[in-house]
């Protein structure tokens, strides 16, 4: 298969204009004849549904939660980037583009990233007009901060609730279209299959989570905005319902899955402490602006942190990276924390945590200043851990947070299945091997507000209105298959709950496909995943029936997907025999344990094609061509 990214020709700055000028438009009077299904109502899906409906398309939107406002985007804390350059500190579209490509360790497509930087400014305008209460300066202008070690202040924020406020803005726009009858909203629905008729995406099958019924919906195009797959690690910063299901169903129907091994592990999360822990809560990255990360030098040191004198502490990030110190990028901070803990210097009841200490900042600025900056986070930390971070250092440990990999899409955000598009975290498009802080919100809204409304048009205009309805045999077959899987799961009646098996999968993934990977570990993981999959299909216990609200059954379906998908992740990590961004292969590191890229052999997107259950998927490459930036080695020394 030849993968064509469909990047328009010409200078980088003109590509998006050129694309918009040259593509076929849908006659405005005809737009209402086209129906579009949008799965997901996070930033990407809600903004897409609203914008497409405003244009006149007939939109059906779907989400798992009881309301579109609860998509996982709601949890994003820190902020959203844009190249406004309001602080006049040297930012520009080019710089945002460059930082994103470099931050992704040169594993993303230049043209897509440039477009992202171009539309970033429109996003802020749009959100402000919707009434998103961004933080302001005294004069009434928008406030900006520097985030994730960026050297310019380009991050817009709404307290520690930026994702919530942006999502509520998009939800407002979506609600307006629902109220106007332009969008039909289906909540508490989970996609269980995508229906392909004559090689084109023509609709979806969803489980009605309340009645258990398999419902069939047809449309002229299908858009997936279903988020990331971070919960493959079981514990993560993601919400409970996050899953790979929709993207994985697309993959099984022939859409290629790109760079599945690129996953981001966030350095500052509340560590794992108890058996029944359901999540690892994120403590915003901004804490590293004032907190100092350290561990005791002596692994046997059992004193309380405040009793350990300076000379017995190792501020390992400051020591190793004198110029960036505690502000090194996420992957570097995470890996170093793990290294310390693996060497036995970790703290806390499990030994898998490091201190994040504010004592110096409090001494320097006073408690009030620190409270004003981080009060919410400190309260949240204290509520969860019962420790007071004003008095004793926080304990943090890295956790699965974001997935850069996703469905392969071209410049139009179309997957390899005609008529099937993918937006937001569910695609692989813009962040390469590592995402910078505050760039996921930007990408989700860019895709939904400003890209898909243009790029879906040419497909619709070329293919015309489809005759296929949800009564087509393909829909009945797909619904039947999904029902059969449910029956099979219910009939196993084994000894392990879905959660117990997911915990086992998480362990395999964290140990071998997590922050540091090597060939032997990956090969072992593949074998372990395969046998765990067998175990699941023989020993899982799913109570209840399929004709009712049945969370165990929903979760069993999601886990079944993860148990197949995890293998593709490990395979991809094995195939990528280099280190880049978040993907550290222990065989390829510099003397200082930094990722060592191999641009001669791995400057490509790895895209996997499903080849039947249990078979090794087919591997495809999309070479990455850099015409505008020079590939350099990251260095944060």
């Amino acid at each position, binding site marked *: 298969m030849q993968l064509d990214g469909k990047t328009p020709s010409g200078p980088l700055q003109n590509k998006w204009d050129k694309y918009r000028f040259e593509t076929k438009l849908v006659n405005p009077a005809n737009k209402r004849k086209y129906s579009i299904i949008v799965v997901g109502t996070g930033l990407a899906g809600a903004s897409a549904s609203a914008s497409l409906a405003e244009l006149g398309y007939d939109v059906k939107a779907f989400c798992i939660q009881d309301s579109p406002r609860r998509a996982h985007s709601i949890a994003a804390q820190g902020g959203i980037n844009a190249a406004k350059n309001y602080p006049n500190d040297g930012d520009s579209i080019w710089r945002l583009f460059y930082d994103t490509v470099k931050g992704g360790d040169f594993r993303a497509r230049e043209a897509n990233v440039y477009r992202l930087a171009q539309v970033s400014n429109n996003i802020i305008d*749009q959100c402000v007009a919707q009434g998103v209460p961004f933080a302001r300066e005294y004069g009434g202008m928008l406030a900006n901060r520097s985030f994730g070690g960026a050297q310019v202040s380009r991050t817009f924020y709404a307290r520690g609730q930026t994702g919530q406020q942006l999502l509520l803005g998009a939800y407002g726009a979506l609600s307006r279209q629902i*109220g106007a009858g332009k969008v039909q909203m289906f909540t508490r629905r989970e996609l269980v299959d995508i229906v392909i008729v004559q090689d084109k995406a023509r609709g979806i099958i969803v489980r009605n989570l*309340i009645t258990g019924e398999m419902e069939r919906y047809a449309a002229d195009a299908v858009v997936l905005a279903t988020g990331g797959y971070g919960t493959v690690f079981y514990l993560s910063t993601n919400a409970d319902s996050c899953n790979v299901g929709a993207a994985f169903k697309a993959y099984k129907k022939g859409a290629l899955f790109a760079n599945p091994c690129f996953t981001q592990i966030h350095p500052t999360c509340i560590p794992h402490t108890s058996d029944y822990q359901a*999540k690892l809560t994120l403590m915003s990255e901004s804490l590293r602006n004032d907190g100092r990360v350290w561990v005791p030098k002596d692994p046997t040191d059992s004193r309380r942190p405040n009793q350990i004198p300076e000379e017995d502490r190792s501020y390992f990030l400051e020591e190793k990276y004198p110029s960036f110190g505690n502000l090194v990028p996420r992957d570097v901070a995470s890996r170093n924390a793990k290294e310390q803990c693996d060497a036995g210097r970790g703290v806390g009841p499990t030994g898998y945590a490091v201190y994040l200490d504010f004592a110096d900042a409090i001494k320097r600025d006073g408690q009030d200043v620190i409270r004003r900056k981080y009060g919410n986070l400190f309260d949240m930390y204290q509520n969860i851990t019962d420790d007071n971070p004003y008095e004793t250092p926080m304990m943090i440990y890295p956790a699965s947070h974001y997935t850069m990999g996703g469905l392969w899409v071209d410049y139009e955000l179309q997957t390899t299945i005609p008529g099937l598009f993918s937006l937001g975290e569910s695609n692989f498009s813009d962040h390469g091997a590592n995402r910078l802080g505050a760039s996921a919100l930007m990408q989700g809204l860019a895709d939904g507000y400003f890209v898909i409304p243009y790029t879906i048009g040419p497909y619709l205009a070329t293919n015309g209105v489809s005759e296929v309805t949800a009564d087509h045999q393909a829909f009945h077959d797909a619904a039947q298959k999904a029902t059969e899987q449910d029956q099979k799961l219910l009939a196993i009646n084994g000894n392990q709950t879905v959660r117990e098996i997911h915990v086992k999968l998480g362990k395999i993934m964290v140990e071998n496909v997590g922050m540091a990977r090597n060939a032997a570990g990956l090969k072992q993981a593949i074998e372990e995943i395969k046998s765990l999959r067998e175990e699941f299909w023989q020993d899982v216990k799913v*109570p209840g029936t399929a004709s009712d609200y049945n969370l165990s059954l929903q979760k069993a379906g999601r886990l079944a997907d993860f148990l197949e998908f995890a293998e593709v992740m490990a395979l991809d990590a094995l195939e990528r025999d280099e280190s880049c961004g978040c993907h550290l292969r222990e065989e390829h590191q510099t003397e200082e344990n930094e990722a060592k890229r191999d641009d001669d052999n791995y400057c490509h997107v790895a895209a996997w094609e499903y080849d039947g259950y249990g078979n090794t998927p087919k591997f495809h490459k999309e070479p990455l061509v850099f015409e505008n930036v020079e590939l350099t080695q990251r260095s944060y020394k």
Partner: protein
Amino acid sequence: MTTTGEHTINITLKVWRQKGPQDKGRFETIPVQNVETHESFLEMLDQVNEKLTHEGKDPIAFDNDCREGICGMCGCVVDGIAHGPQKAMTLCQLHMRKFNDGDVIAIEPWRARAFKVIKDLMVDRSPLDKIIQAGGYVSVNTGSPQDANALPVPMEVAEKAMDAAACIGCGACVAACPNASAMLFVSAKVSQLALLPQGQPEAAQRAIAMVNTMDDLLFGNCSNHRVCEAVCPKEISIVNIARLNREFMKAGFASEAV
């Protein structure tokens, strides 16, 4: 892994079980052993559900998603209080260290005329979405706005708008209100947008449309009991209700003038 030296308690749940909207429902008593005190309330329910699953019984259905107090999906009445005993906290952020060994804990779904019970502790809160659909937004199409800084907003105003915008749409205010009114929820959105210049052109119309829709959807009226404010996990203030009333009055005058 279990943490060493950490507390565990034994408790008894009296939990509402209801198969579906038509079922009458009843309390079921479930003893729960070995609850680690730093489990969250929902992790404790997970623990119960694991046990029920092993016994081949139907797990307790409850809504949740983010488990960090922001999505608004969780929520039950615990010992008579929406979201439980801890102030300004969603149920998912309540921890078991707030309970004592031997406690009997009653758990019920939100009860309000406008919210039907779906199963056990899950209710249908879609009426809240319908209220927003009636006008809880600024009517602006994608692509039309001017530069974001063309419209300065004083910092205090932005902060007040943000206070109101913090509502997570959980519905606890409705569940706690003796009239099952959604006034706090409605007023939060009306206030956020009325405070900001962007929201002003539609302020009057928005207040009327949202309040009327609230009435149509069987929510009750506000008679100043203030329980809503007391249970709100995001500390949305009833000052917003006063602001809503002002908008509503203004709207009334405006429509009479036409």
